[in-house]
């Protein structure tokens, strides 16, 4: 009984924490736009939280810079299991235009494990919702295997 409830809760309330690394703010404003009334990602139970201890999904935007790398690892460790990482935007995936720079410290998936990739510079809010739904299906699938 408790198990069913837990599975339901995980699927219906994916709380996200937005982690802006070395981005240009473009992805960040699209994340906020997705959470506000026109796109309204809150209908999937998404809430933005300010601390990793409350979060299920870490939404990472921007490149992993030299200053941010260790802090990102620490925040990942602080997040309680089960946790999912959402790489939002091309910068998080492969560094995009900044990947030749000295401040770029590797793609995100070499720093922390990533569950879903949404490319674009920046991706549209619809792409965020699409990625979110795919992630929720993934969570569901994982739980049914368990």
């Amino acid at each position, binding site marked *: 009984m408790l198990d069913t409830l837990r599975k339901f809760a995980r699927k219906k309330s994916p709380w996200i924490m937005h982690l802006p690394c070395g981005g240009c703010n473009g992805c960040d404003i699209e994340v906020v736009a997705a959470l506000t009334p026109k796109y309204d990602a809150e209908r999937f139970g998404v809430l933005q939280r*300010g601390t990793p201890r409350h979060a299920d999904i870490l939404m990472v935007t*921007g490149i992993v810079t030299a200053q*941010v790398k260790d802090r990102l690892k620490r925040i990942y460790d602080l997040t309680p299991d089960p946790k999912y990482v959402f790489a939002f935007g091309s910068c998080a995936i492969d560094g995009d235009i900044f990947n*030749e720079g000295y401040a770029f410290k590797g793609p995100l998936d070499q720093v922390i494990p990533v569950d879903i990739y949404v490319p674009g510079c*920046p991706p549209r809010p619809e792409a965020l919702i699409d990625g979110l739904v795919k992630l929720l299906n993934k969570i569901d699938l994982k739980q049914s295997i368990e």
Partner: protein
Amino acid sequence: MSEVIPIGPFHPALKEAAHFELEVEGEKVVGGDFKFGYMHRGIEDLATKKSYHSNIFLAERVCGICNTVHSTCYTQTVEALMNLDPPQRAKYIRTIVFETERLASHLLWFGVGMHELGYDTAYMYLWREREHVMEIMERLCGKRVNLGINTLGGVRRDISPEIIDFINGKLDIVDKVIEKTGKIINEDRILKSRVKNIGILPKDEAKKLCVVGPTARGSGIDIDVRRDEPYAAYSKMDFQVPLEESGDILSRVLVRFKELIESTKIIRQSIKDLPRGPISLEELPFPNKGEAFGRVEGHRGELVYYIKSNGTNRPERVKIRTPSVVNNSSLLYMMLGEKLADVPIIIASIDPCFSCTDRVTIVENKSNSRKTVLLSQLKRRRNN
């Protein structure tokens, strides 16, 4: 007894990572220190490794909110190196996109500012209505953010009559949004009491700190690159530069509000007078050996590009001075003597590229104990 409150440094809820260390006595801020650089991407170094043309897209990605500001300033500086004069139609299109982006940026700021004050209804309302401006940008450039409209010697997309009709229709809606925003600012007493006579930056101090943009105009300094040194099609536009004397947060809010009205005026004028002709030059010369300096009035203030060319297809040096760099230095002066609960709106009032502080850790110097406080609790502390 004074306490030191570190805010940040890499804070999940910050729009950009930054570190603030505030020294407080009770609720009063008595000192502070800032550290930036968590977002350092090495753009100036990257720019020397890329060609002049690919640098347009790099310049755009310095800041996603004011991307056209950066690309316009960059292309104008390189055009000065090349001795180019883009066609008139291209200049008008640049002006239209520039001002549309100002609308989007200021509406975004109003939303974030309301959120910092705890007025989430207005925040959600403004972000919903901001989508109308985003739709204009999408029709104009094919994208919502990082528009990619500028190219060396002109622009990349033309405006058709259907798009002009679409923009005119949307501007009528935006007018109503601006009217309602004005109503919120002018009639809400609670909002006014949170922003009036708080975070004051007097005129002489503002001059000493070299602040730019709405921060300077809110303190009574009459500067605006669009009027003082017109670029694009601004010399043919009829617009006012709003000015407020008191220097508090309310005056900066009012300056931005009046700029919204001026922006719609400029867009309407440039659509009406849009000249015919090509939108970009067919042939591009090689950049001359030498250096060039360009400046534009961004949404946050004056943006400066300096480019040194050595005659090859790559610049030898690109220096960017963004408005937030100079405006950030004025934060400490505004915060001194203010309540801790007002710090978030003071930081937001200069519209820096980071704008929300969601959680801080209080370190008590005496016992060296740490406790974590949510910003919502911090806001509540003001009342006790």
